[in-house]
């Protein structure tokens, strides 16, 4: 019976429960140094929650997001650079975990798109402006 129940629960994804432990020390507490806290906050807003994908870890209430905030604040407090912390996570979860896409061959259309659109727009506008001349 218990096994059947467990199998049924598996079908309902929101039921993947939360733990009984309280949040980690730095999950919901600001660092005493305002400069470090600002760095940590800026980084947390650019890191994706692994549970509620689509939210940043700064916005998510998931247990794992709290532990990730704790990890970010602990590392920043110990003197690590935000870029190092981001790289550490990317090594494990891929670029997916960061909201800031890197410049690399696979992402060049993303970075080039604004420029291409702007040039295309200028070209269209040029044709129209020329026609408008008396």
């Amino acid at each position, binding site marked *: 019976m218990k096994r059947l129940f467990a199998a049924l629960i598996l079908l309902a994804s929101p039921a993947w429960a939360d733990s*009984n432990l309280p949040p*980690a020390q730095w999950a919901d507490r600001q660092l005493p140094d305002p400069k470090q806290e600002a760095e940590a906050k800026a980084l947390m807003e650019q890191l994706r929650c692994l*549970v509620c*994908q689509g939210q940043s870890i700064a916005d998510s209430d998931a247990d794992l997001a709290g532990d990730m905030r704790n990890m970010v604040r602990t590392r920043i407090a110990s003197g690590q650079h935000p870029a190092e912390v981001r790289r550490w996570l990317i*090594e494990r979860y*891929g670029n997916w975990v960061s909201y800031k896409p890197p410049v690399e061959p696979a992402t060049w259309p993303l970075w080039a798109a604004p420029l291409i659109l702007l040039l295309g727009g200028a070209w269209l506008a040029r044709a129209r402006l020329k026609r408008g001349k008396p």
Partner: protein
Amino acid sequence: MSRAVRFVPLALLLLFLAFVAWRLTVPSDTTIRSKLEGKPVPAFALPPAIAGRATFGSADLATGQPRIVNFFASWCVPCIAEAPVLRDLKAKGVRIDGIAVRDRPEDVAEFLKENGDPYQRIGSDTQSSVQMTLGSSGVPESFVVDGRGIIRYQHVGPIMPQDLDRVLAELEKAK
């Protein structure tokens, strides 16, 4: 403006609708896989999950034989469904180490009493830090680690009976 050019916006719209229909019928896979497959287990150490039970760290994984590192938790419902399969694996001689994520010793003990104890060693990861170290994003999750301490395979979610063959094959490959 030539006749053909006039249909370009319509063609673009149809292309867009086709893309939407495709993504609605085949949703993209949201599983987050660890990028550490094929790489050595990063360094970590864990306190014991239960007083008196052996724990382990990354250095204890290179034992010459492949083993499974299983992330679980007493508060994790799919872990209950996975428990009988882990017992099966243990009966087949597979060595399994457990990592209890965000858990209390008394809850872990209760969970093992109710669902069986397939673990050789159990460590406690109260702040999910080892979970992040291995690139895991939830419970349950299992890693096949070979005898040299290299991660060979990651299984996301509970190992269900239908996954048993795959996991055993990966263990065999890791020998």
